[in-house]
């Protein structure tokens, strides 16, 4: 195959403006015209070539490798219309590289990711959450572990912005889910310095670092949603940021009662390889409406489910103590260690469409606490 690839194919030329000019005699590619002859002609400002900008920004390590919307000033200005205050105001300082997350930088990264202008207030709030000390973004960004930022949306904003909380909500196919998750990743790369292989040392990385944002299916949940559980009024929207691995599946079609179903879940959750086994911390449990209904039909409240999982998801100490940081004895009881420190480390949301599945995501362990912020 090697002889098929010219050295310069689409990668270094920067001349794709030629594509724009089909009938003009002049196909010289000069973004910044300098000769006087050139300047006598009629100039028409056009949007930058998307292929060229995408490749240029990729080569500068500003992107994930996928196409971006060129962040022209006019596009960025549209985002400001949905924001309040000075574009140069610093909303957060993001570690490890202590980047100043100004409104301007948030908007530029949001445009690139494909966000719509009215997502701006939510983006600002998410970035502010990332700067919360308890989130330990310095560790989350730089670790060899495949932890990503998982963003969960609650409240009326879910429907106003048309988030997906149903079939396929963790995956592609919905613009707000896809672009907001991606914009957060771009902020991590370009503001916090989490460039893969440079400021992000994830040994293998994770698909969830492309985009990992979804809404809770509050309409189909038998329980109070996450924002309410965290003392935010149901009328307010909320954005929750968690440091999580990609979610993996618990297929249970056969359990007809709560404890059987929860046993499938806890035995899938309690594994020695996750970070929670040696540095117990948060566990995200994303339950489908059908699974949640099987459990709630027996009268279980959300707190009962959290308590059951906290008490029963335990790993033998000899298998658990294999992570980077030494397992602290304070967590252990009778040679077993629970993968969560406390009941509220079990974070339960209901999401998804038809089907009998729960998805689990292990956290980064003791070193990252989720953050929930109310939306205005």
């Amino acid at each position: 195959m090697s002889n098929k690839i010219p050295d310069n194919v689409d990668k270094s030329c920067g001349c794709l403006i030629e594509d724009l000019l089909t009938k003009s005699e002049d196909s010289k590619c000069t973004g910044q015209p300098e000769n006087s002859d050139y300047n006598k002609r009629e100039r028409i400002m056009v949007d930058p070539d998307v292929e060229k900008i995408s490749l240029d920004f990729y080569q500068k390590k500003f992107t994930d490798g996928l196409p971006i919307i060129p962040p022209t000033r006019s596009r960025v200005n549209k985002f400001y219309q949905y924001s309040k205050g000075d574009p140069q105001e610093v909303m957060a300082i993001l570690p490890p590289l202590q980047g100043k997350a100004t409104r301007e930088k948030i908007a530029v990264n949001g445009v690139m990711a494909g966000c719509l202008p009215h997502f701006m207030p939510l983006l600002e709030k998410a970035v502010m959450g990332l700067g919360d000390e308890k989130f330990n973004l310095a560790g989350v960004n730089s670790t060899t572990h495949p932890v990503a930022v998982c963003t969960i949306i609650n409240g009326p904003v879910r429907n106003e912005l048309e988030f997906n909380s149903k079939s396929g909500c963790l995956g592609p196919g919905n613009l707000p889910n896809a672009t907001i998750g991606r914009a957060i990743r771009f902020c991590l790369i370009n503001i916090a310095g989490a460039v893969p292989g440079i400021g992000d040392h994830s040994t293998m990385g994770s698909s969830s670092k492309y985009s990992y944002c979804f809404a809770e299916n509050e309409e189909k949940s038998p329980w109070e949603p996450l924002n309410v559980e965290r003392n935010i009024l149901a009328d307010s929207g909320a954005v929750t940021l968690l440091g999580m691995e990609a979610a993996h599946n618990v297929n249970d079609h056969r359990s007809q009662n709560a404890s059987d179903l929860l046993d499938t879940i806890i035995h899938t959750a309690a594994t020695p390889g996750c970070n929670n086994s040696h540095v117990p911390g948060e566990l995200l449990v994303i339950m489908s409406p059908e699974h949640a209904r099987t459990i709630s039909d027996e009268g279980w409240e959300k707190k009962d489910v959290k308590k059951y999982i906290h008490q029963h998801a335990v790993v033998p100490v000899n298998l658990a103590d294999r992570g980077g940081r030494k397992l602290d004895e304070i967590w252990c009881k009778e040679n077993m260690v629970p993968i969560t420190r406390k009941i509220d480390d079990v974070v339960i949301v209901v999401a998804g469409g038809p089907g009998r599945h729960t998805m689990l995501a292990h956290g980064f362990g003791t070193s990252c606490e989720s953050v929930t912020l109310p939306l205005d």
Partner: protein
Amino acid sequence: MKVNLVEKEVMDPLAESGQKNILLNDIPSPVHQISFFDNTKPGADIILNLLKTRLKQMDVIESKKPAGAAASKSQLEKAAEGDVSILALGDCGSCTTWVILDAIRLEKEGVPTLSICSHKFTPFARKLAQAHGAPNLRIVEIAHPIAGLDPEKVKEKTNFIIPEIEKILYNAD
């Protein structure tokens, strides 16, 4: 007809650093008391124990901190009891980050520091220190990997770096 299509300019997504430079502390001469700040990564204890046997004329204060996260206030206070603090081990992303960031916290408290990182993570450690206003933070490189190795191999790698550490600690003599 001649027409020139001119592409609009694009804006820069990269943020500026919000950090000002900090002052680093000189290593006193002589060092009476040294603090070992062990982040519990595999091999950190082996490195520090071997170092202890070589720095006989100093009192050693041993303390622990989490890998991948900030030291607690009391952990930091204990580590600050030394004339110098040696932090080990940065041999992964998050543990390197918090070796460096805790070293910087100690420097801000007036304690000179020396951080031990594996060579695969040292470039990142230096970039991080720079971003946090400490481009000259003392970082000693040990050969990666450390985790997963037989203790004897870790000692071998440690022996390579002891002269450099001694030079830093006795330099002021």
